[in-house]
């Protein structure tokens, strides 16, 4: 059995799927190039770095989250449809399938993070080296809970179209979660409670140390515990949904 070959082939299949790659890599990269590089505000100071870095992290979080959502979702659809039965007729144990899909999802999630950080590094983004390393790691980690979100959608609807829609909805979560443009006022008050807010704030924490950036300056502070609470609560919500759906599935 050659699990590595399977992982590479399945990664390549997902990578060349334009519907996936557009939202995971192309869209966040394009948005960053439009709004994060060579704009009037690009070199404004933000925390330990500049605005360009702040915008880049938000885009990378969005891309990585789209990757974990889409891949976990499609894995759930695959295993429940005929392909899962086909794979059950091989020597591959179920655990190896989960492992393979986790590795593929992680590879896809790392992709936009690498692309955006490289572009940011060679353009105008500024961060101290240690902050840069920390934020890259946190971006990938912050995307992981969304694998549960994708999984729940895949278990609930068992269709690729639904998983695609769930990935599309992430644009709204990204907007409300402060990943794209700095929110203020009512939108910020609402956005704080949405799932991507915690992930974006966590990934930016090394840069901002919790300060909330508005278009007019600093509009407040998120303590670390509040950021973590958002991430933990939403992870639990998604996990509970998966658990309930899995039970419904096996009780049939």
């Amino acid at each position, binding site marked *: 059995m*050659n*699990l590595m070959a399977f992982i590479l082939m399945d990664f390549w299949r997902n990578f060349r799927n334009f519907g996936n790659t557009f939202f995971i890599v192309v869209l966040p990269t394009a948005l960053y190039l439009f709004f994060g590089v060579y704009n009037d505000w690009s070199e404004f100071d933000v925390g330990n770095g500049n605005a360009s870095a702040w915008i880049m992290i938000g885009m990378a979080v969005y891309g990585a989250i789209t990757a974990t959502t889409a891949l976990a979702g499609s894995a759930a659809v695959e295993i429940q449809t005929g392909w899962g039965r086909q794979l059950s007729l091989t*020597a591959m144990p179920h655990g190896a399938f989960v492992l393979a899909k986790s590795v593929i999802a992680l590879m896809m999630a790392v992709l936009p993070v690498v692309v955006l950080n490289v572009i940011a590094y060679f353009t105008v983004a500024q961060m101290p080296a240690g902050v840069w390393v920390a934020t890259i790691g946190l971006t990938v980690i912050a995307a992981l809970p969304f694998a549960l979100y994708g999984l729940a959608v895949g278990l609930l609807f068992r269709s690729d179209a639904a998983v695609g829609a769930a990935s599309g909805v992430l644009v709204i979560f990204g907007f409300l979660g402060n990943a794209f443009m700095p929110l203020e006022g009512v939108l910020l008050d609402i956005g704080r409670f949405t799932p991507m807010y915690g992930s974006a704030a966590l990934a930016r924490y090394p840069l901002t140390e919790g300060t909330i950036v508005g278009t007019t300056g600093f509009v407040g502070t998120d303590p670390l515990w509040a950021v973590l609470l958002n991430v933990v609560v939403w992870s639990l919500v998604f996990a509970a949904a998966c658990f309930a759906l899995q039970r419904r599935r096996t009780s049939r």
Partner: protein
Amino acid sequence: MRSQTSAQEPDLSQLITVAAVTKEYRASGGGKFRAVDQVSLEFSRGEVTALLGPNGAGKTTLLDMILGLNTPDSGRISIAGSTPRTAVQQGRVGALLQTGGLLPDLSVKETVQMVAALHRRHAPVHEVMETAGLTEIANRSVAKCSGGQQQRLKFALALLPQPELIILDEPTAGMDPTARHEFWDRMAALATGGTTVLFATHYLEEAEQFARRTVLMHQGRIIADGPTAQIQRQAGAAQIKVTWAPSAEDLAQLPAVRSWEVHQSGTGETPQITFRTDDADTLARHLLARTPAHGISVRPASLEEAFMLLTEKQDHSAEQEISA
């Protein structure tokens, strides 16, 4: 002492043993639906068996359990002395599943390569594709393949582990007659090589032409099992058609008749009668020697008729059980 040890060894002539297997599903109404009901079967090496039955007879459920995709509620299944899952992991079993899906965004060749990577040992990819007739469409995406081409691809996947046992669930569904013919030619070559084949079908001529043994399933139970030719005999070997206008008394005296049907063609003309019989020789001799019946024709019953008759008997005896 020696005979005792040999008695404990598994009987290796039987490749598959299904012992008193039952599987129930929760029905939508809230009750339980028994998809497979106390089924016991044995299949020896090199045997080609057709599993025949109408939709909902429990064929797919039984095959899924033999493949380890599903576990019986009670009873036991072993393949070459090990559990189905172990046998599958060892590559002893290949299967073409009815609902076995393919990924539409892979090419034909990629699909074979990807599944090959997950087997411990496998036949060379190009060889399997050649056998299944896929070489010409190797680079076509699965989404663009016809139903028949997809079945051939699934067949290639079934061949990959070079299995001793191949299980086919409605393998020719979606194939045109030519493709179906080609498919069975390939299977025949495989069976000649000693591969054990078990296939579910509702194309009766496939069982008649390809399987030496036929197992009939109805409502989760085995209602007949034996050489395909014998199954036909068991159900009433033949139909005899004569031109004759018998009285009720004449009919009562006929030997070996299971049922009859009168075809009145026109007023004044002698009607034609079709008899279903389990002993065509005796009935024909009686009709020609002792009655004025003429214009006799004898035709062996098709498996379809055999099947209908056997399921009727089954339903009938079930009714009797209830009324008793």
